[in-house]
């Protein structure tokens, strides 16, 4: 044994380490492979030893060899051994090797589960870190399932180093084991607010990655991310969040509106180009999603375009590239804004950087118009000539065709010009896109009837000069255009000036060197031409021309009959026999022209590319059933109809294949193909289709087309597209002149105005009329075409599995498998696993913090609701059965104790609450966000945002069973009130009630959730509408008194009702009971009493107060006139019960109804507001406040909060505000501030009310 160890260490000393290996490889440059193979042999020996150090060294070397491309999977088991070493050094080597060469099908991965788990829980943070890093590269579904729980635990590790790695790896776990997403998500969400920036960044990273694939599930996180965006200073995090918002906005346009402002601010303020760029990108995404309905929309677009222009003009090529990239996004929706930068983009076409040129080309696509198409294409043609390298030139070529053919040739005014451009493009050396040009030629010739004469003439020239194109035809894609040329000449041969000559050109012996499918078209169309020639000579008694033609055909066709290509051969022999027969008839002087041309009669119509696919299958037709016995042969491969231009397989193999055997079958197939080729319904040339050929571009030189002057053509040579530009200009000028004349004739008196405009100003798009009356035939579709189903998602996308609703509450069965029963579970499928968990391995699910807090909030709200239920008067809605129970059961109990049962009966509402949270958050969107940041304003707005709220909060029915809405939108007033009380408590050094703490907690939490609180901003002084109503004057009486604080608010539902909430607080050590509340009615205002009671009867307060406890009751008053403030006298009587005795006490108070209390916060949009101001029936008034020493947004918040206004619009130090009284009076304010002076201009349709409201506002600010 000892000997073995010694031997091991000696061996080790002579082992090569990684450095030696590298050095060795470098020294054996000539026989590297051989050297490495000896090294691998050595490594194999080393791996056989027991010494872990030797093994680790070997594995380290293998990792290097893996990088050089050697398969090292045979050592997988040794890698696992090294991974499980107890030493960090070796462990790291092992994990590195594993991360480089393990993958899902590596079977030894199964063995690693326990080792990884051990490492994950290692006390050494670097063991854990290394394991996490490694695992992130080779995690499998099994590993993910087995280790998810361990990683979950690590997400709450004390060390941020581990936390961030654990958070990050969760993404990989989710991908492999989607079931873990929902259980883990709450904790992941929690990590968004981790104190460590690295962990936070990791969480943002993971959620962004998840949300990018399935954005809709993450919409509810928008408020949280919004908060992060406004608070974070880490550019990495910001970029991720901003990118995420870019993905979210298409789903929720309101979010976009909310984002515009902070993003615009960032654009203005940031110095980081990366951040600026992403902001611009997201603003673009927002603008795309909004498309309309934003008033200052164009300003944002302008800002973006302006910033992008700066980027493009930058000397840094990277910025230039990105600027162009982003510009192309704007182009899709706002082409106008981009078009103004045409100069810049054309300039980029000359850039030396190909990436930039390509981007600029993309942009050109959207910038063309009828007016500038020719000019732009001309410029592009120049580039084509100059371009080096086929890739870029091919790109240019496709771009030219794309630009011209886009939206059904919308921008082409002169098709002659287009045809000549196409012909010019055929001169391109070694392009791969011959088929593209060809299909364009076909498409234009078929669909634009007026152009056929011209097109045919051009094609005839092309055929005549075919030898120039076919320098090296087998490898040269350009000869594809001959296919189109031949077909066009044949099909529309009636337009040919000299069919004889063209026929001659098509039957030249050299044609036989063309690819087979082109030859076939040649032969077929030669026959068509033949028919045309016969027809044209019909009246002619001298038969020499026709006889010559027949002779020519008979002489030349045999070449094709011998063709190796079956289709050519077949067609040729058919036609040859036909011509021979015709020749016989001709010799007998029989008139055959009519009959021959009947062979090719009929008009062709273009068919939409997908028309065939969309023909519905007739009922009862099952295409899958066999009609005959299935053939034994491999027939299926050729079954699909072939598009004309696709010819993936080399022709030789096809021919050989048909020759081999089953001739009969092949012939039928070929016949079908021929039929397809001749069948107009198989012309599948869509203007946009661009199939990329796999052919290698020919590099051989092709001579530029020259005009063969010996050929007497009527069209003198090939037209230069440039001349059309000039012609077009002339034509337009002429048109303009004519138009001007017409204008003059039409309205002589207006002669000066419009006529001149036409002269000088550039013509608008509509003015340009096409040169020809172009009849663009639309493509035909079957009558009952099926709707398109093109945008199917890739079913193999791993992210599809992660499309999981995250807002639903977790079910019991949803948890990550726990390790305790792993051995038993290992063999089971995940589903069984979970079942098993549900029964046996239940680990008490940890409620994570957020949930708990939410529950706490809920509890508090329950409590509050209950309280008010208790207090409320009987006449108010009694919609809930629960009500009675609570009243009966809990009257005597301290409120705190009564929580539990009702909480249990509460259904989980977190989901709907969250959703409506989002709605609420978004509903604030029209209001400038800096105002929203003020919690009080938000609260006030919340109070008015929807009816729900008015029902739930301001209303006198706090027991509405709309739990969710209540939760979500409850204005924080109640809580504020509690806070205030809490303060009072503190001041008086009284024993505090712990439940107040809950409330204050709840407030903080809720506002965070809503995203409306900007904690970093200077906090607002706490505000409350509650004021002291009366304090007991019986100080002698052992402090048994109650404070009365009250708040008055209008009732939205009833025009003449005001609800007063009164908080009663027991400040003494004794029990207070039998409280009775009474108010002396005035003429104008009356306390609503239950039916049957007299006008002076007092109302019992529906609760008793133990020492130190407070509770709230609400009273409804009817008011008639609301234009004046009112004061009502009232009395509260109660019994103070101590252990020894009980005394009857009384407290007088005055209820002060201000005019403000009749106002209801109502949101108003700026356009409606403007309309309102315009209407004449508003009286105006104004007030100035001096010495107001607070920030403007605090001021606004105060007005909003105390006086129930909402902000309509805020611009710098000026804001318009709106409110409405319970009787429907509009109150509009314009608040301006300069220094310490605040001026308020107000308008209202009731001057008295307005005056009083203004006085009250003045008073509010004089107090502070």
């Amino acid at each position: 044994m000892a000997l073995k160890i010694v031997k091991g260490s000696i061996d080790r000393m002579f082992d090569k380490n990684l450095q030696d290996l590298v050095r060795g490889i470098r020294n054996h440059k000539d026989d590297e492979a051989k050297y490495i193979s000896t090294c691998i042999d050595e490594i194999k020996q080393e791996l056989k030893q027991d010494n872990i150090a030797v093994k680790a060294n070997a594995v380290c070397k293998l990792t290097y060899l893996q990088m050089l491309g050697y398969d090292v999977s045979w050592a997988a088991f040794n890698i696992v051994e090294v991974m499980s070493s107890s030493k960090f050094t070796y462990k790291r080597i092992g994990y590195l090797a594993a991360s480089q060469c393990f993958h899902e099908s590596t079977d030894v991965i199964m063995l690693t589960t326990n080792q990884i788990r051990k490492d994950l829980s290692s006390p050494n943070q670097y063991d854990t870190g290394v394991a996490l890093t490694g695992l992130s590269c080779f995690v499998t579904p099994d590993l993910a399932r087995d280790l998810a729980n361990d990683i979950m635990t690590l997400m709450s590790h004390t060390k941020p180093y581990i936390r961030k790695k654990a958070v990050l790896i969760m993404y990989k776990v989710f991908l492999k084991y989607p079931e873990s997403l929902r259980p883990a998500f709450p904790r992941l969400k929690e990590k968004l607010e981790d104190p460590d920036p690295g962990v936070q960044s990791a969480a943002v990273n993971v959620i962004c990655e998840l949300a990018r694939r399935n954005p809709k599930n993450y919409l509810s996180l928008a408020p949280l991310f919004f908060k992060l965006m406004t608070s974070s200073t880490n550019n990495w995090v910001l970029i991720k969040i901003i990118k995420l918002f870019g993905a979210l906005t298409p789903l929720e346009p309101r979010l976009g509106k909310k984002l515009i402002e902070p993003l615009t601010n960032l654009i203005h303020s940031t110095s980081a180009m990366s951040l600026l760029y992403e902001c611009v990108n997201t603003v673009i995404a927002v603008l795309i999603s909004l498309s309309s309905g934003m008033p200052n929309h164009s300003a944002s677009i302008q800002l973006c375009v302006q910033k992008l222009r700066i980027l493009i003009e930058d000397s840094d090529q990277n910025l230039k590239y990105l600027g162009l990239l982003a510009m192309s996004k704007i182009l899709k929706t706002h082409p106008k804004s981009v078009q103004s930068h045409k100069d810049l983009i054309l300039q980029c076409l000359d850039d030396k950087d190909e990436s930039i040129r390509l981007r600029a080309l993309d942009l050109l696509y959207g910038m063309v118009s009828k007016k500038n198409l020719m000019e732009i294409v001309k410029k592009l043609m120049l580039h084509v000539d100059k371009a080096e390298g086929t890739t870029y030139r091919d790109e240019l070529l496709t771009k030219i065709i794309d630009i011209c053919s886009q939206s059904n040739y919308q921008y082409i005014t002169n098709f002659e010009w287009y045809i000549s451009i196409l012909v010019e493009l055929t001169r391109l050396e070694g392009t791969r896109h011959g088929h593209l040009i060809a299909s364009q030629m076909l498409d234009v010739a078929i669909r634009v009837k007026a152009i056929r004469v011209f097109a045919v003439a051009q094609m005839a020239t092309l055929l005549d000069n075919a030898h120039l194109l076919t320098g090296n035809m087998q490898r040269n894609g350009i000869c594809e255009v001959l296919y189109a040329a031949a077909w066009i000449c044949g099909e529309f041969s009636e337009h040919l000036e000299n069919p004889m000559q063209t026929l001659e050109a098509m039957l030249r012996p050299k044609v036989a060197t063309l690819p087979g499918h082109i030859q076939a078209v040649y032969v077929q169309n030669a026959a068509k031409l033949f028919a045309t020639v016969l027809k044209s000579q019909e009246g002619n008694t001298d038969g020499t021309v026709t006889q010559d033609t027949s002779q020519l055909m008979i002489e030349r066709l045999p070449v094709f009959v011998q063709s190796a290509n079956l289709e050519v051969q077949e067609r040729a022999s058919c036609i040859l026999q036909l011509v021979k027969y015709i020749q016989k008839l001709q010799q007998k002087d029989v008139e055959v022209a009519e009959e021959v041309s009947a062979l090719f009669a009929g008009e062709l119509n273009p068919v939409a590319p997908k028309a065939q696919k969309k023909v519905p299958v007739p009922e009862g037709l099952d295409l899958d059933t066999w009609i005959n016995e299935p053939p034994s042969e491999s027939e299926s491969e050729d079954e699909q109809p072939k598009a004309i231009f696709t010819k993936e397989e080399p022709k030789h193999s096809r021919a050989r294949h048909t020759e081999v055997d089953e001739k009969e079958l092949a012939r039928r197939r070929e016949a079908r193909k021929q039929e397809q080729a001749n069948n107009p319904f198989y012309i599948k040339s869509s203007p946009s289709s661009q199939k990329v050929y796999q052919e290698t571009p020919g590099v051989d030189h092709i001579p530029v087309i020259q005009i063969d002057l010996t050929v007497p053509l009527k069209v003198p040579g090939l037209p230069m597209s440039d001349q059309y530009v000039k012609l077009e200009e002339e034509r337009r000028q002429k048109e303009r002149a004519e138009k001007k004349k017409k204008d003059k004739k039409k309205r002589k008196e207006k002669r000066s105005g419009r006529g001149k405009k036409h002269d000088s100003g550039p013509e608008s798009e509509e003015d340009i009329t096409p040169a020809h009356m172009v009849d663009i035939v639309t493509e035909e579709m079957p009558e009952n075409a099926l709707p398109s189903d093109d945008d199917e998602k890739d079913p193999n996308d791993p992210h599809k599995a992660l499309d999981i609703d995250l807002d639903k509450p977790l079910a019991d069965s949803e948890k990550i498998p726990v390790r305790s029963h792993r051995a038993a579970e290992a063999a089971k499928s995940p589903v069984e696993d979970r079942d098993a968990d549900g029964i046996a391995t239940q680990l008490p699910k940890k409620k994570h913090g957020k949930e708990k807090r939410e529950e706490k909030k809920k509890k508090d709200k329950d409590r509050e609701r209950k309280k008010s239920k208790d207090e409320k008067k009987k006449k108010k809605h009694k919609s809930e059965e629960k009500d009675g129970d609570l009243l009966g059961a809990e009257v005597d109990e301290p409120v705190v104790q009564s929580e539990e049962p009702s909480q249990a009966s509460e259904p989980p509402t977190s989901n709907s609450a969250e959703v409506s949270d989002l709605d609420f958050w978004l509903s604030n969107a029209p209001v400038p966000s800096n105002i929203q940041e003020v919690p009080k304003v938000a609260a006030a707005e919340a109070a008015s945002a929807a009816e729900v709220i008015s029902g739930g909060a301001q209303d006198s029915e706090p027991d509405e069973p709309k739990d969710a809405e209540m939760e979500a939108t409850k204005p924080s007033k109640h809580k504020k009130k509690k806070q205030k009380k809490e303060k009072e408590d503190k001041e008086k050094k009284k024993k505090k009630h712990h439940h107040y703490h809950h409330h204050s907690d709840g407030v903080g939490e809720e506002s965070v959730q809503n995203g409306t609180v900007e904690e970093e901003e200077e906090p607002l002084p706490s505000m409350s509408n509650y004021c002291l109503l009366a304090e007991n004057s019986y100080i002698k009486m052992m402090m048994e008194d109650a404070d009365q604080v009250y708040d008055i608010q209008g009732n939205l539902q009833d025009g003449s009702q005001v609800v007063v909430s009164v908080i009663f607080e027991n400040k003494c050590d004794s029990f207070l009971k039998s409280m009775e509340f009474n108010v002396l009615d005035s003429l104008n205002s009356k306390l609503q009493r239950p039916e049957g009671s007299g006008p002076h009867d007092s109302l019992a307060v529906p609760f008793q107060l133990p020492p130190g406890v407070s509770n709230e009751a609400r009273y409804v008053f009817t008011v008639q006139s609301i234009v004046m403030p009112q004061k009502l006298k009232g009395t509260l009587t109660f019994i103070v019960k101590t252990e020894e005795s009980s005394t009857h006490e009384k407290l007088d108070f005055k209820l002060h109804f201000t005019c403000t209390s009749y106002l209801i916060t109502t949101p108003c949009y700026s356009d409606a507001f403007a309309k309102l101001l315009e209407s004449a029936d508003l009286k105006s008034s104004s007030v100035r406040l001096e010495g107001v020493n607070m920030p403007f947004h605090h001021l606004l918040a105060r007005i909003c909060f105390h006086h129930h206004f909402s902000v309509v619009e805020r611009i710098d130090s000026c804001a318009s505000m709106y409110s409405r009284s319970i009787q429907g009076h509009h109150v509009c304010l314009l608040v301006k501030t300069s220094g310490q002076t605040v001026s308020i201009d107000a308008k209202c349709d009731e001057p008295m009310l307005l005056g009083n409201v203004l006085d009250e506002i003045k008073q509010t600010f004089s107090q502070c």
Partner: protein
Amino acid sequence: MIKAILIFNNHGKPRLSKFYEHYTEDTEQQIIRETFHLVSKRDENVCNFLEGGMLIGGSDYKLIYRHYATLYFVFCVDSSESELGILDLIQVFVETLDKCFENVCELDLIFHVDKVHNILAEMVMGGMVLETNMNEIITQVDAQNKMEKSETFIFQSTRQDR
């Protein structure tokens, strides 16, 4: 997500390859070759972005690279990464290497590819950016190296004796 990180020299010799998706060794070599081919034919003063080659490509992916002296650093990323951000990350990576190796040169990467991997692991994990703060990265790398040293002290000394 980052799909792959490659470092190769001016002749296309790989110095580090990290694929965050599985490919066979042959495909990996092919990708490296092709990427080298794409990157090396570009001039110095052109932009650092390339719309991907056939193998690693797909319209969503981009190659983002930087050229330092004899080495190319190439990141293949999808559209969820910020282009300029990744350029910064490459810079951070190189600066970190520079700090860890003290004036890094190609030879350091040739002989200590494992160390480069370890440094990279502190920056990018499973294709996602883990840390961008250079000081934090160096702290963690140093701490791990210290641990390694304390463990392999004996081993080191035996080798030096030789």
